[in-house]
């Protein structure tokens, strides 16, 4: 049972994707596999394949921008007119599919369901589903705002035509998409074949399931790309690098209990904190010491050698801002190469230089409703243009029920959900947008804890 059925609103799926991605194939599949359901289709584009349904309404995309110039007030006039009329019929539809053109900006479409009171009352945006042509999307992903925004706005993404690409290409594509939109559910498909319950009635609010599907979806990005644990003796050591792509590199050296994965893992969080401190610059020839300091190695000298001073023998973890291979960084002890016993690569926060990213925040505890309200209002007023989507499950102090919400740009729609019961009270939220500042968002949110 989802919220859309309880309050009598008709669910709407917005289907986006470039021409030829497989949108119409998917639409026809939905129409033929859902016998007995009255599905109305609003089409902005008549592709090469016809849609097999009595209730197809052709519409010309009509964007209403408002006088105040705010992009968040931009809505789709054609949809308001057509849906408004459809919803007057007693014999209402069970479901509405809105198929947009390949070049449509999904923002105004989604906003229509939040901005217009009539739409908001009668309809519920169930999901924005984006069909991606796994082979040809590479032509668009770098230079088309529409392609990037269709991915960023999506709740569900179908990587279609997987039979035309290799597994490695698929993995690359999925990683790239995941980097832009950490909350979407991604399914790999051939001929747009997918189970209907993954597409229809998914409920934009169903974050629980998103997290079940992909437990890493909230995984943070790190300020370092690599860490290695070395067993170091009390002798003189030297870190030797070659000139690389950057003039400086931040590093931190921290003692750990033993040279194991677990010990490295335990060091990650404290070192993230170290990386948020002020850095101390160290020129070539200087000495690097283990401890809670963030060191910025100056990599502009001719000979890049740094002494490493170890007072007590043991396991030490070296965290580096960039992958050591980029600078051919090596550690020597008594003239011999020392190799890390354990090493790990981290998802960097600048992986593809994509301006579109996601920021997920998970924090246990209860929120102060007033502070939360002030923070969200201020955030949406100042950053709403860059925040495409926002979703979350919140634990509000004094409230027995979970509070679920979603937003599009500056528009926000939230409601109480099922009770927490015995479940640990916890807050999960995710922002998808352009130029998001993870540290600022996390700090702002955590300041709302009661």
């Amino acid at each position: 049972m989802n919220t859309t059925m309880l309050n009598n609103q008709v669910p709407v799926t917005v289907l986006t994707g470039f021409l030829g991605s497989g949108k119409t194939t998917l639409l026809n599949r939905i129409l033929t596999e859902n016998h007995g359901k009255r599905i109305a289709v609003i089409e902005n584009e008549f592709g090469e394949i016809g849609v097999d349904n009595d209730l197809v309404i052709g519409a010309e995309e009509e964007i209403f921008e408002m006088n105040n110039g705010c992009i968040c007030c931009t809505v789709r006039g054609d949809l308001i007119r057509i849906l408004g009329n459809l919803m007057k019929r007693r014999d209402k539809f069970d479901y509405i599919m809105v198929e947009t053109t390949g070049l449509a900006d999904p923002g105004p479409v989604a906003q229509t369901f939040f901005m217009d009171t009539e739409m908001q009352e009668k309809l519920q945006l169930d999901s924005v589903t984006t069909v991606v042509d796994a082979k040809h999307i590479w032509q668009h992903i770098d230079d088309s705002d529409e392609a990037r925004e269709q991915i960023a706005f999506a709740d569900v993404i179908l990587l279609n035509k997987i039979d035309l690409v290799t597994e490695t290409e698929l993995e690359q594509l999925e990683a790239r998409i995941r980097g832009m939109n950490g909350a979407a559910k991604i399914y790999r498909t051939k001929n747009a074949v997918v189970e209907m319950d993954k597409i229809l009635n998914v409920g934009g609010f169903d974050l629980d399931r998103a997290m079940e599907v992909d437990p890493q979806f909230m995984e943070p990005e790190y300020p370092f790309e690599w860490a290695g644990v070395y067993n170091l003796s009390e002798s003189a050591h030297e870190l030797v690098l070659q000139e690389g792509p950057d003039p400086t590199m931040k590093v931190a050296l921290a003692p750990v209990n033993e040279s194991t994965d677990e010990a490295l893992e335990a060091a990650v969080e404290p070192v993230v904190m170290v990386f948020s401190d002020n850095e101390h610059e160290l020129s070539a020839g200087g000495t690097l010491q283990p401890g809670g300091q963030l060191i910025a190695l100056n990599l502009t000298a001719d000979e890049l050698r740094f002494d490493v001073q170890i007072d007590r023998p043991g396991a030490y973890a070296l965290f580096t801002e960039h992958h050591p291979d980029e600078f051919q960084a090596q550690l020597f002890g008594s003239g011999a190469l020392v190799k890390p016993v354990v090493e790990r690569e981290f998802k960097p926060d600048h992986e593809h230089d994509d301006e579109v990213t996601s920021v997920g925040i998970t924090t246990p505890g209860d929120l102060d409703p007033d502070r939360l309200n002030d923070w969200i209002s201020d955030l949406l007023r100042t950053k709403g243009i860059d925040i495409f989507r926002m979703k979350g499950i919140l634990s509000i102090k004094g409230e027995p029920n979970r509070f679920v919400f979603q937003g599009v740009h500056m528009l926000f729609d939230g409601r109480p959900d099922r009770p927490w019961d015995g479940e640990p009270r916890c807050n999960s939220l995710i922002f998808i947008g352009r130029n998001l500042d993870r540290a600022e968002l996390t700090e702002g949110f955590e300041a709302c804890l009661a």
Partner: protein
Amino acid sequence: MSRLNNMSSRILQPSQLRENWTATISDHVIDLAWSPDGKYIAAASVLGPVTIFEGHRRAVIHAFEGHEFGTMSIAWRPDGKVLASAGQDGKIRLWDMASGEATHSLDGGAAWVEHISWSGGEKPILASAAGRKLKLWNVVGELVREYPDHQSTISGLQWKPRVKQLASITYGGVMLWDPQQSEALNRMEWQGSSLVIAWSPDGKHIATGDQDSTVHFWIMSTGEDLQMTGYPTKVREVSWDATSRYLATGGGQDVTVWDCSGRGPAGTKPITLSGHQDFLSVVRFQHRGKLLASGCADGLVYVWQLRGNLRSRTVHEAALTTGVTNLVWSPNDQYIAVGDESGGVSVFSIS
């Protein structure tokens, strides 16, 4: 003291509107119109059929099939002999009251014909709006003019009272047309989407209700406009009183009335009429009288007497079982016909 209070509360208690008759058509009443002589009521269903009732008793005179996929609007020719209808089959139909047949089926020029409006005067002209297409037709259904496409879908049409001049609204502003000319007389541009248009009876103002929760007053003599803000929702309900002094507007639960006398409405505080519990669907002044009727999604019809902000009050009321979709005063202002969401058509007496 207590006796006085009792008395005043008894005086202020609105009276129930007397229901003359009620009937049901196939679905949601999307448009409702009294014939110019007040003898008939035409009611259009969102599903398509258009039913002609006698005004004073529950009797069906004609059942026109209307339009496949749904009727959008209806309009009586000023002589009352023909009803025009527009629908989602892209057609405008002219229904002859004498024979009960459609005499013409005209092509509006797009998938949906949303608006039609008859001019007054000698040889009335029918204007039709379908998508961006504006067409003019004569009394016998001949095309007299087809204008170049508007820049965006036409969201409303109205002839200037007593003058053959037509105003159309779109996303982007208001345009004025002379049926004798192929070019627009005037374009009053504004970046926003107007949803409904109303000329003041004296022709001096055009009021529009807008998607961005505002109301615009266009002053025809200067081309200037005033934007009234503060509405909770988009505004689709506007109505002028007979003297052109007051404009009643919806856009939420409260009826907001602007006073255009003196320097108004600029810088004035409007009269707010509260009482409805849901969004308004229609506000309508009498044709000549001073009463204002409002209909709401809460199923209530209120008739208001306007006496400034503090003394305006409900004088009559009626409760329907579903939301009111439309409401029209009879030509003699003595009756109100009300349509509702489940196809109910009712006629109430005011006295």
